């Protein structure tokens, strides 16, 4: 393909932020259009480079085209909105009906979440998939945590003393953070907003763990259950489900971002209302601000990822230029 066209289509792709299937379909269609148009322009006496220049000008700015395509595809259907909300609702059910102590339910839910994530991964990664991906990552983190906990306990009991358990657990945090970072970078390559969407349950879980620890303590809750807090946790995930569904149904990026920010404030309000600990309102406000920053942080990462991508493209172009000069 001509470098001019490749650049043009790359810019359209980066602004349209589509799933791989739709993206390849649209790019292929635009490519066939350029083939026809350049062929016709060449017949009028233009060189292929001149024809490519004229054809891309007639098409309009690639960024504007990419944004228009994004707006066509960004609004999901009601069924897609429901699919995005389901993992949050599953967790809401788990806490509302006190199923979080039922191992069979937890195992089934985890398997369903992972299976749906893998299915959606193989079928074009639609927007609702990122909601499930967030929970799959959480499942993975919990499994790794439990395995390391068991390993640490085994080592401290039979061989190396009680300190070994903490050493193994200390290794868990950087591994989990690296894994999460890698997942975020992969998603940001398509769209930072989807990475934020994927991260939606993380602040909710962190803030609930913090609130419960501030109350009676997590160990006491683990033994005695969550008498008052369970409904609060359920409402939190219900709110997240509503936010996820709304996110999918909206077309404009600004509104999608606003939904994520409002969801964070709502979570904090629910935790403040239901937690059995006295959390200072000022601290709550500060925490909600931090979580909004955390949730929108993939936006900063996107600039770096995209920048790196364009550097590679520039290097690619330079190599191509050198090869042409040599021949």
């Amino acid at each position, binding site marked *: 393909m001509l470098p001019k066209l490749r650049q043009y289509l790359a810019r359209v792709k980066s602004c349209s932020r589509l799933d791989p299937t739709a993206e390849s379909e649209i790019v292929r*269609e*635009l490519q066939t259009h350029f083939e026809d148009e350049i062929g016709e322009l060449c017949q009028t006496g233009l060189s292929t480079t001149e024809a490519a220049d004229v054809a891309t000008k007639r098409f*309009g700015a690639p960024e504007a*085209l990419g944004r228009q*395509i994004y707006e066509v595809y960004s609004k999901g259907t009601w069924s897609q909105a429901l699919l995005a909300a389901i993992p949050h609702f599953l967790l809401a059910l788990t806490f509302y009906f006190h199923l979080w102590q039922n191992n069979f339910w937890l195992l089934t839910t985890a398997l369903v979440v992972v299976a749906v994530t893998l299915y959606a991964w193989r079928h074009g990664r639609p927007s609702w998939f990122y909601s499930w991906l967030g929970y799959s990552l959480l499942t993975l983190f919990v499994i790794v945590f439990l395995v390391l906990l068991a390993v640490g306990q085994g080592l401290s009991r039979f061989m190396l003393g009680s300190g070994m358990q903490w050493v193994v657990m200390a290794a868990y945090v950087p591994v989990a953070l690296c894994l999460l970072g890698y997942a975020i970078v992969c998603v940001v390559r398509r769209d930072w907003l989807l990475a934020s969407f994927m991260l939606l349950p993380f602040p909710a879980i962190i803030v609930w763990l913090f609130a419960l620890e501030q109350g009676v303590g997590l160990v006491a809750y683990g033994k005695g259950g969550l008498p008052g807090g369970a409904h609060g946790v359920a409402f939190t995930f219900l709110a997240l489900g509503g936010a996820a569904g709304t996110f999918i149904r909206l077309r404009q990026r600004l509104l999608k971002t606003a939904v994520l920010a409002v969801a964070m404030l709502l979570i904090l309000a629910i935790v403040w209302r239901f937690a059995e600990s006295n959390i200072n309102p000022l601290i709550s406000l500060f925490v909600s601000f931090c979580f909004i920053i955390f949730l929108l942080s993939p936006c900063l990462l996107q600039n770096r990822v995209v920048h790196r991508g364009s550097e590679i493209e520039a290097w690619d172009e330079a190599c191509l230029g050198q090869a042409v000069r040599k021949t």
Partner: protein
Amino acid sequence: MLLSLIGQEPIYGYQLIKEIGKRSGGYFQFKEGTLYTALHRLEREGLIEGKWERLSNGQERRYYYLTKTGRCVLDEKRDEWRGFSAAVNLVTERANTG
């Protein structure tokens, strides 16, 4: 306009632009990229359907077909347009004669 052209025969993007230019005597000129956005919006709304087909020279093009829903919407829009243009004609004719 797009539905009407697609309704007459299956057509692909580049052909559609040429056809609009030819039939309107060059009156309708727009950025070609916007045509594809419009086509994909109509497809998302279920009014048209795109299918890849092989041409006689071996190249593939994405042809657009009108769906049943698209046909109904086209009929409605045609009626609306006929009513509107007839009303405009009536008003302007009276103005000319008066």
